[in-house]
């Protein structure tokens, strides 16, 4: 589709772009400064409406640079929802200086735009650009606490790791271009089917995996995660742990499923069948979840523990990525959707605790169960869900991923590793539960109340764990519609 006619299918993104510009302009007009917050939220809502309306359409836009399809729509909804919620919650985070709130919101929306592009890119150039568009504002956001040493450290580490990883990825992309002669992933797919030396794909493939792996914090490209998560302002940590990760998975799935499979399966007749990328992913997945978990066990800082645990969740999702089938994609997307909510509610609870009690260490949470019983009950539900126990949606998510391995009768060893990991996960997640309920605390029994926005965000995001456990069929149905791209 030509550039001009593409625009009419590009309305949600255009709204976001417009909002970013407006927020920056309004910020310099003293009288209008206070409207930037509602403007950002309004723009996201408006974009959601347009996105929802166009659900189901499938087009290639801007001369084959990006693709609008149900698959990208699903992820865009996740992005919109998480960005909306983060902008909302950030207003009630004490750490953040309200002086910079307009810049902060604008940066978040630039990341949002970048993630939109990431989930729809079908061209190597666009892939690289969109990843950078997500990364660069993220570096700034991580360092948002100007006077905080740790926040500065987080930002710097993020920049160094990020630029190194994207450099390697760019190298990989250029080799791929050299082998196939095109930047369009559709054309590359066709070229790869007649390639003479399939083994030569391994090198660019691994380099590309470095770039994507860094975005989703897959071991061994995870080293930035704990420090950045600990140092960044908590809302940003929450944001980084879900939204860019979801975007990373979106692009990982799209690139690998388009380039290295035919109609969502690895056909034995292709030269590509010699390239055993699922095995690479399987090993990465096992290491990611095990290392993430083992390191999380040792953490005493809640944010840091959640950071390591988010690494192990990535390992779980990668487990489904080892199975090449549309159903496995469905399992990943289901897990991502649930993970988004449960992780956000856990981080919001951390925001609540650090705002009210200045609590960062797990021991600081002692006796919290008595001081705000309702929120703590929902937090417990979230933690149960993160562990993957019934009756929660986290269990259903894990169940779907395990089911994929069994359905395709592959990688049973990975299933055993994963199942043992979920026992380890219980140990550290329940350290928080233990602090909240089992430990008596220092005797302070005065109630602490959260701001209604924080309160209801935690409750809603946590309650879904129960809802999608009792009846999750509609959600799976929706996801199934969104991956019609590969299931035909």
């Amino acid at each position: 589709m030509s550039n001009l006619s593409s625009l009419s299918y590009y309305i949600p993104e255009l709204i976001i772009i417009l909002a970013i510009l407006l927020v920056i302009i309004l910020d310099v007009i003293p009288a209008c400064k206070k409207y930037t917050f509602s403007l950002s939220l309004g723009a996201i809502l408006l974009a959601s409406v347009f996105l929802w309306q166009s659900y189901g359409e499938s087009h290639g836009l801007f001369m084959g640079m990006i693709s609008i399809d149900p698959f990208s729509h699903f992820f865009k909804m996740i992005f919109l929802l998480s960005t909306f919620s983060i902008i909302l919650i950030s207003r009630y985070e004490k750490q953040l200086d309200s002086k910079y709130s307009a810049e902060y919101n604008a940066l978040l929306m630039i990341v949002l735009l970048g993630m939109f592009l990431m989930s729809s890119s079908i061209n190597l150039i666009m892939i690289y650009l969109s990843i950078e568009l997500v990364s660069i504002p993220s570096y700034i956001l991580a360092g948002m606490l100007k006077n905080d040493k740790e926040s500065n450290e987080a930002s710097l580490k993020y920049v160094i790791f990020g630029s190194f990883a994207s450099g390697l990825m760019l190298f990989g992309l250029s080799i791929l271009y050299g082998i196939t002669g095109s930047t369009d992933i559709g054309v590359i797919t066709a070229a790869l089917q007649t390639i003479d030396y399939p083994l030569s794909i391994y090198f660019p493939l691994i380099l590309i995996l470095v770039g994507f792996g860094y975005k989703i914090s897959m071991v061994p490209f995870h080293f930035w995660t704990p420090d950045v998560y600990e140092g960044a302002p908590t809302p940003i940590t929450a944001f980084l742990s879900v939204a860019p990760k979801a975007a990373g998975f979106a692009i990982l799935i799209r690139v690998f499923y388009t380039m290295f499979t035919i109609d969502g399966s690895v056909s034995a007749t292709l030269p590509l069948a010699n390239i055993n990328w699922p095995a690479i992913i399987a090993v990465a997945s096992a290491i990611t979840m095990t290392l993430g978990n083992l390191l999380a066990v040792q953490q005493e800082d809640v944010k840091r523990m959640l950071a390591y645990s988010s690494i192990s969740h990535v390992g779980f999702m990668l487990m489904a990525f080892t199975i090449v089938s549309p159903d496995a994609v469905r399992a990943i997307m289901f897990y991502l959707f649930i993970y988004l909510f449960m992780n956000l509610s856990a981080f919001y609870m951390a925001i609540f605790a650090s705002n009210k009690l200045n609590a960062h260490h797990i021991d600081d949470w002692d006796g919290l169960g008595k001081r705000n019983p309702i929120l703590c009950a929902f937090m417990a539900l979230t933690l149960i869900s993160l562990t993957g126990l019934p009756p929660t949606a986290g269990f259903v998510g894990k169940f779907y991923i395990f089911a994929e391995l069994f359905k395709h009768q592959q990688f049973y060893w990975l299933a055993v590793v994963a199942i043992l990991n979920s026992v380890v996960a219980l140990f550290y997640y329940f350290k928080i539960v233990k602090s909240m309920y089992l430990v008596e605390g220092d005797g302070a029994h005065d109630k602490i109340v959260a701001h209604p926005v924080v309160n209801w965000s935690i409750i809603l995001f946590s309650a879904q764990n129960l809802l999608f456990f009792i009846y999750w069929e509609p959600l799976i149905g929706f996801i199934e519609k969104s991956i019609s791209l590969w299931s035909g």
Partner: protein
Amino acid sequence: MESSILTLLIFVPVAGAVLMLPFAMLYGKENAHYYKWIAAITTGIQLILAGILYLNFDPALSIAESPFTVQMNWIAHFNIQYFLGVDGLSIPMVLLTALLSFICIISSWKIEKQALGYFSLFLLLDAGMMGVFLSMDFFLFYIFWEVMLLPMYFLIGIWGGPKRMYAAIKFFLYTLFGSVFMLLALLALYYYSDPHTFSLITLIHTVGSIDAEIWGISVKYLIWISLFIGFAIKVPIVPFHTWLPLAHVEAPTAISVILAGVLLKMGTYGLLRISYPLLPGEVVNFAYMLAVLGVINIIWGATNAIAQIDMKKMVAYSSVSHMGYVLLGMAAVISDSPAGAQAGMNGAVMQMFNHGTITAMLFLLVGMIYERAHHRWIIFPNDYEKPELAGQQGFGGLGAKVPVYTGFVAFAFFAGLGLPALSGFISEAMCFIGGFSVFRTLTIIGTLGILLNAIYFLRAYQRIFLGPLNEAYKDLTDISHRELFTLIPLVVLILFLGVYPAPLLDMISPAMDGIIKIVQSVI
């Protein structure tokens, strides 16, 4: 009515727990009174429902024919069903659960600390236990199995003894370790059977044709092992038992009763409900090992109990020993004499029920003395907090001071050591009769357990109740009416089933015949 009774059995306690919330909002959380009564009424209703179920239960009907069976689709595309049913294997467990839950609520009457939390969690635990015994869909079974762990964790961890936090997480980690393997077995059963299903009734017919291999080992073998790990930890089979003494000792009285009375039975129930009918070939191969493990349990549990100076720990180890009888009886399923197989299997299920009532009584009685004396040492340990008491007898001569209590303890101890005319004797004898028809030597070693049981029970009795009265307890009060109310039903059951076990036996045996037939068909 008939088709909704099983659903009600599970969800009446849930409704009770939910009902507590408006009370908490209206009257505040400190008002323990309301929560006790709500819990008592809900478990009372549940007990009545279980009674109705018992009166209308026809042991001759299979699950497919039973009017109580409920079968509905839950998640259609995974073929997960809301499938509840009751047969001769599950009905004793359902009755036991309902009875013990009610008794436990009454015995927890003095709980004042966070009463809302305690009673609502207890009701959720109750619902979970009921669900395990009524589920006929493996997925549903697994859900209830895991759901039960959460309230248990909190109940031990918040209301338990000094080492409660360690005990709670150890219990949770152990059982979770077992149940995650069950999850793998569940998925393997689903995907290797054709058509894909979680229904335990359909799986009986479809699992037989699986002949696939993973890593060169038969899938069925791996499924058996995975299931066995999950169930063995729950039973608990030595050497997976180390969570048990700790959890039982640290848990509050009512929770110890539930742990020993109901939760341990889930391990053997799971073996009989899932492993036996689905994997008869593996059962035949493993029967000898089961018998060996059973005998190890009997001897190990009993010898450990002898060494204990803490009354509650002694009772906890006696549970390990008594569950060994169940395993020995179950192993007799391969007996070539029909009478032997029947005696073993029926004895095993009866022992599950009888041990539930006897051990409940033992834990209740230990709880009563603990409430009054604030300790339960038979002999004070050497590192006791009051050095002048270290090494001394904890009690002594209570028999004259609290005669009614002493009488109940004597009754419970004798039931525990298997005195004839009390229910434990019948089921233990049946387990041995069954075991003897196949494993002669093992059974003879196993009978030593009876002797060992007598040693620790009688010795404890002597040390606590006989001899001159320990002056520290001259103000001890005897049993109260409320406590009497919790003990009498158990006494009646133990005595009645000891003299006339036929009602229980008749209920169980058709279901056991079915399982025996399935297992024997592959020999």
